[in-house]
Each structure stands twice: as C-alpha cells, then as structure tokens.
C-alpha cells in the first residue's frame, strides 16, 4: 500500500505519537498535567511535545489534581480541547468531584449548549512494584458515571489510534493506559490514514469455540497467553479486548457467548461491583438460554491494593485466568 510505514513502536511512544498528531490536527488541543513539560511526564508520554508546541499548549500544572481537571473545564468552555494527565491512578481522587459532578454533567445541564471535549489520561493497574496509590484500577467509578466515556487501550496500535479518537470526541473521555505495558512493542503502519475501528468498539482478537474471555488494558496480553496455553490442552478460547468500558460494547460479547456458551471476565480491579459484575448481569439477561455456565469473574481481591511484594498474589495471572476457564467448563 502506498505510503505504508511499518514500524515497531512501544505502547507509550504510540500515545506520544498519537498526541502529537492530535495537536498537529487541531490547534485547540492543549495538554495539562504535572511534570509533562520539560520532563515529558513521569512515564515520558509527553516527551518532546512542549519543545515543539510551546508552554501554552503543553502546560506544566501546579501540583493539584482538582485544579488540573477544573481548569481544563474552563478551557473547554473557552473552546479548547484539553488533555489532562493524571500522574497515577491513585492520584485521580482529588479530582473526583470535578470529573463526576462538573465534567460529566456540564453538557446536560446546559441542555447541549456547551460541550466538554476533554480527555483525562490515567495510567492504571499494578505490576510495577510501586508503593501504595500507584497500582490501582479505578475505572468502575467512572464507568458508573453517566456523561463520561471510558476506554482502555491494551496494545501499541490501539493506543496510537484511540488517543487520537478520544481527543476528537466531543464528549469527555477517561482514557486508561496500562502502565505495565508502556514498554510493550508491536509493529504497525504508523502512516495509516484512519483507524481500523471505532473508539467504542470491542475487538475479537482471537477466535475460539469453547469459552469467551473478556478483559481490557493490561490483562489483555495475559488473556492471550492463557488462551495459547489452553489450546495446548485442547480448549479453544475466544478472546475479546473490550477497549470501551462505557459505552459497553455488549453486542460483541453477546455474539461471542451465543457461540461459546461460556464467559470469563478478567480485570485487575476488585471483582465486587467491578466491570465484570455489569458484564455478567447484562450477558445473563441477554443470553440466559445460551449460557452453559454462570459468568465467571476473575478480578483482584476485594481488599486495598496490596504491598508490591504481594501483588503477584493479587493480580489475575495466567493460572488464575485458566482456573476461571476450568470453573466455567466444569458445568
């Protein structure tokens, strides 16, 4: 294909490149967050952008998260498209009121007269050996809030496109980045002119017939490894990268469950009232007669995120996912 440019890029750098393209495409796109200027953010996602776009478009904020999101609301009202960086998942809570009471509701309160086209980027999930508040999975709080859209990328090519689509979206988007996958590399066409799929679509990334596995963000890679291991034992697993948590692309899951009859939902967040609970409820409502087994949730324990020396015991790994598959197959 003409102009094709296959490159091997990390997930982190894919977001950098996506942000760069979004800023080139629209001069109203501005970035705001802590340490995102000269340093390029603690994960270097905005590296080089302040140098190229200036301090007005890549704004080092004072150290106050409610301030990041609250001032971004004001910028959005002035016609800008702000992209906020929250440094770590556990630091988003000081901005919680601004996100759920201001960002999420402003469009509706104005009966559509104003838009809040804002992205809030949050590196999330564990597995990096950090102290507390650096490894959390707060996605369900935001998915529970009407007015927000919530997505999570899992691989470099998706990261490249999804961040651009999120910036272009006229609604506020909470953009979860799987921080332990920032350094994963994949080859894709970085010069492609459009995304292979919409921002709010799930992606069936492996076909199978016996069990459906659904997850998002950092566990997608683990799900694929689990499916490969299961295949060696004769179990055919279909794997779905959910990508969008709100709106929930339930049709893709339902279509798969109608085929396999079994569903295991995986995430790092605590399983109680997590995304898996909602998916379980909706699939049960829509596939009651097709289900061969209850929907199985494989999530984090219902405890505060543990000290990092114990996190391997908390996070869903290959064995725990396969244990979930076995439980589904036991019926």
């Amino acid at each position, binding site marked *: 294909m003409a102009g094709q440019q296959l490159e091997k890029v990390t997930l982190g750098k894919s977001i950098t490149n996506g942000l760069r393209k979004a800023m080139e495409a629209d001069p109203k796109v501005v970035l705001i967050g802590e340490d995102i200027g000269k340093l390029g953010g603690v994960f270097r996602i905005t590296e080089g952008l302040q140098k190229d776009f200036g301090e007005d478009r890549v704004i080092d904020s*004072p150290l*106050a998260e409610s301030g990041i999101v609250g001032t971004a609301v004001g*910028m959005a009202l*002035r016609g800008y498209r702000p992209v906020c960086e929250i440094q770590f998942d556990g630091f988003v809570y000081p901005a919680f009121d601004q996100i759920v*009471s*201001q960002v999420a509701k402003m469009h509706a*309160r104005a009966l559509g007269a104003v838009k809040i086209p804002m992205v809030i980027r949050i590196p999330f999930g564990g597995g990096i050996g950090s102290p507390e508040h650096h490894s959390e999975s707060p996605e369900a709080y935001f998915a529970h809030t009407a007015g927000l859209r919530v997505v999570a990328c899992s691989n470099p090519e998706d990261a490249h496109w999804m961040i651009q689509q999120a910036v272009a979206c006229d609604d506020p988007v909470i953009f979860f980045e799987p921080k332990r996958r920032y350094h994963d590399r994949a080859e894709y066409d970085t010069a492609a002119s459009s995304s292979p799929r919409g921002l709010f679509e799930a992606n069936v990334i492996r076909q199978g017939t016996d069990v459906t596995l659904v997850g998002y963000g950092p566990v997608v890679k683990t799900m694929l490894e689990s499916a490969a291991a299961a295949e060696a034992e004769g179990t055919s697993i279909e794997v779905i990268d959910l990508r969008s948590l709100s*709106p929930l692309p339930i049709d893709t899951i339902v279509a798969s469950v109608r085929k396999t009859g079994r569903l295991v939902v995986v995430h790092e967040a605590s399983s109680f009232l997590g995304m898996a609970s909602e998916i379980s409820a909706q699939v049960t409502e829509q596939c009651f007669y097709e289900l061969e087994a209850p929907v199985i949730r494989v999530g984090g324990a219902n405890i505060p995120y543990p000290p990092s020396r114990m996190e391997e015991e908390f996070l869903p790994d290959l064995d725990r996912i396969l244990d979930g598959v076995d439980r589904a197959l036991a019926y």
Partner: protein
Amino acid sequence: MSDKVVAELQEPTPAVGDGGPDMIQLLTPEGQRVSHPDYDKYVADLTPEDLRSFYRDLVLIRRLDAEGYALQRQGELGLWPSLLGQEAAQVGSGRALRPHDFVFPTYREHGVGFVRGMDPQSSLQLFRGVSQGGWDPQENNFHLYTIVIGAQALHATGYAMGVRMDGNVGTGDPDRDTAVICYFGDGASSQGDVNEAFVYAASFDAPVVFFCQNNQWAISEPVEKQTRIPLFQRARGFGFPGVRVDGNDILATYAVTQHCLDEARNGNGPLLIEAYTYRMGAHTTADDPTKYRVSAEVEEWKFRDPILRLKTLLAHEGMADEAFFTQIDEEADQFAAELREGCVTMATMPGETMWDHVYAEDHPVMEAERAAYLAYKASFEEAN
C-alpha cells in the same frame, strides 16, 4: 517568629463588625457620598440616569428574590436561595462588566444574571425542577449556576487561562481585552477548589477577578469558622492583590470591581475582592437562621441596607423624586406578576428528553434506554 510578625497577626483588621478601616466605601449607610482618592474616578462619569438605573436594578432583583421566596412557600419552587441584602454587591459588580467579559456564578447570583441580561425566569428553572441549569452560558457570557461550593473557581480560572492563550489580555483594545469574574462566598473560601484556583490563577497570570461576597454566614457557620484573618488578606499569601469593599455600597462595589476588571484585562490578574455584606435572610428556604444567630445582628445590618442608602442619595441630591420611586415600585409589581406567571406556567419537559443531552455524540445506551422507556409508556396506552 519575630515579635513584629506576631504583633501583625494579633492585630488584624476585624473579620466581623463594620468592616474595619481597610474597607472601601463611597456611600455611607446614611446615604452620604464620601470621597476616596483611588476610586472616585470610577464613579465620576456616572450620570443621574445611571444612578437611577442602578436603583431600578436593585429594586427589581430584591423583588425577584421576594417572589422566589414566596413561590417556594407556595409550593411552586423546590428551594430558593435568597440574595436579600446582597443586591448592591451583585448589581455593582455586574454593572462593572463588559459584554465580552465572562461570569462564573454560584447559585445565588440572580442579581448578576439579571444585569447581564438573563431572562429572570432562568434563575427559577433550576429551583422549580424543570432543568439542572438550562441556559446557554454563551448567550450572556453568564455560566450555569454551580452548586458544589467553589467548584466554579477552577472553571473561571481555566477560562481565564484560555483568554490569555487567545491573546485577549493587555492589547489595549477595549473590545478585545477580556476579564473573567468568579463569584463565591465566605464559606467557599475554605474549599480546596477555591484555594487551588488561587494557585493556578497566580501561576498563569490569569485575567480573573475573584469576587467573594462575604455575607458573614455559611448556612449556620459564622465567617470566623472559615478564617482568622479578613478574607481579602488571603490574596496576599497567594501573591496577588486583595481588597475589601463595602458590599452594601453600590458605588464602591461598582468602582472597585471596575478597577479590578481593568487590572485583569491589562494583564495584572488575578485579583481578589471581598465584598463585605450580610445575608439578611436564611441560607435557603430550607434553613432556619433563628437557631444560630441573634436578631440584634440582623437588626444592625438593616441600617446598612444597600437600597435605602442609594435612595437617600438620589433623593437628597435631587436626582430622583417621589414620582420616580413610585414608578419603579409599579414596574416591580409588573415585573413580579410576569415572573410569577412565567414560573407557574413553566413547561416540564417530557420524560423521554432526559436522555437527550447526556452525551454530545450518539450513545447506544441512551438510545436503548429511551426506546425502552417509550415502549414501557406505550404499553399502558395499549392496555387502555
């Protein structure tokens, strides 16, 4: 700490009482015009007609407030937050704005909205329960009411940062240079968002004027619960100027706000104005102030009434006669009648519109839920 610093801290301007020597005043409670070297120039050009129109605004918004209170008591509004006593703070500051300036109100700025040209019905719809806001903020550059205390201070600051990024500060072109004004109260001064807004506004030289109406009470808590020092002095700690103005003096409020807006437009923002005033009524219609404050305090503040002192000036200086005051009262009666009529006939939107503006772009859950709701409603009609 040095003895000097300790002495300073022990001898602050009084947080309560008559506002202290730092308070800017151009019109005494007795209606006497007093001179101020820095602020006289901002009222020098006001004509008798201007002052009469100030008076009209004050009377009409007090009437709007009285009707809001009555409509709540009659079951037509769910709640009403009264502005009684704060008319001069709101009209004085609101009239100092230019059309392209932008206002971020709390939920009590019915008077500011009125002088911005908002349909007076607008402030009723939230409290009648027909919408959660309901107007286009861009129509009069008057943002939606914000109920979460202080949250709008960050919105105002971000908006002002955008104004600066647009290059609309310090150009010298009065049609271009833009200021943002953010209203909040003494209670909000304790909120994290207000303090973060001060930090952000200072850090980015944002052209925003923080307008704190210190009405002495945050529901039941007196201002001493929020602060040891006068609120305007807080600004100094954040690195920008703060000034206390007599919030019941429309001339001083108008002058000081003009000055601060000019400073902001010229690139010398942010600034803080503490409008020293009093909440004469309850916090809202759900509140009972007799449980926590003494009536003697309210009686004392009646002598500082913002409308009476302007009326005294107008009458004493021969700028208005009895016929004028009667005419304004009649206009207020007419205004009230229209307001009441508009309120009780305000349409409630049909249920299916609840899903209309949750998202700006298409959303499958909104469409599915709306369709399910309509099918559910239709099922009753079929059954009949």
